[in-house]
């Protein structure tokens, strides 16, 4: 079973978590001033990364908190997890696991 490290509770089984979409998608401060294209980009357009992807997860069956994670989508491997409001760990630490 895939193990995910919750920034609050520690390493827990994947069953306790739900995926929450791409992380760091900032809502425009003044939606009324956005063009349709800008608003559509905020609402619908997401990265489809092959490789490291920053995404939100929620420890639903645990502390219930949202947090962010860096996951390698090609290997389904979690490289880092961090709390909401924190900056993603530096790129140098993203490849701490050796390639298989």
């Amino acid at each position: 079973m895939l193990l995910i490290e919750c920034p609050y509770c520690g390493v827990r089984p994947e069953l306790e978590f739900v995926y929450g979409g791409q992380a760091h998608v900032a809502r425009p401060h003044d939606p009324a001033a956005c063009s349709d294209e800008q608003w559509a980009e905020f609402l619908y357009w997401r990265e489809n990364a092959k490789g490291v992807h920053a995404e939100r997860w929620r420890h639903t069956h645990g502390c219930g908190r949202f947090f962010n994670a860096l996951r390698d989508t090609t290997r389904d491997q979690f490289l880092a997890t961090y709390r909401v409001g924190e900056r993603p760990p530096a790129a140098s630490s993203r490849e701490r696991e050796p390639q298989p």
Partner: protein
Amino acid sequence: MVDLSSARQQQVLAPTPLLKQLPPAARLVLRGRSQVLAAAADALGLPRSETPCRAVRSDVRAALWLGPDERLLLGSADAAAEMHGLLQRALAGMAHSLVDIGHGQVGFEVSGARAALALNTGCPLDLDPASFPPDMCTRTVFAKAQILLWRTGATTFRLETARSFAPYVTQILALAGRES
């Protein structure tokens, strides 16, 4: 004609040394910032604690860490109104949420040398005392149900689940107890 389904059900639901339903209890979920949680602990005579996934208790009450801003406060069933009053006085003027879930959940005691083994039939957590020591508590899953698991002793767990999930959880646990 013999109704085999009910006969089998009774056999499954028969009390086992492994599983015991606990009497009704007062259960309050408190959410708020750390000063709210500290004031509540003081009001209830419990030690202040911010340690994740740990429970603190006195003789009659307990506070279980559910999240960084969330605690489950347990007491005896007849003390619910008293706890509610103490907290409302202590937390007056502070932003918080206090919800009585006393009737929504039921508690069970799972005990014995094989308690952890039986729980692991549905719960994927590592229940070795080294990684799940006494006083550790957490929400987690048991098969398809969400439970709250609290290790109250070396071989004793308190399990809380929604009342509607209780038959599901207890029947799986009773089966696991017979097999393990």
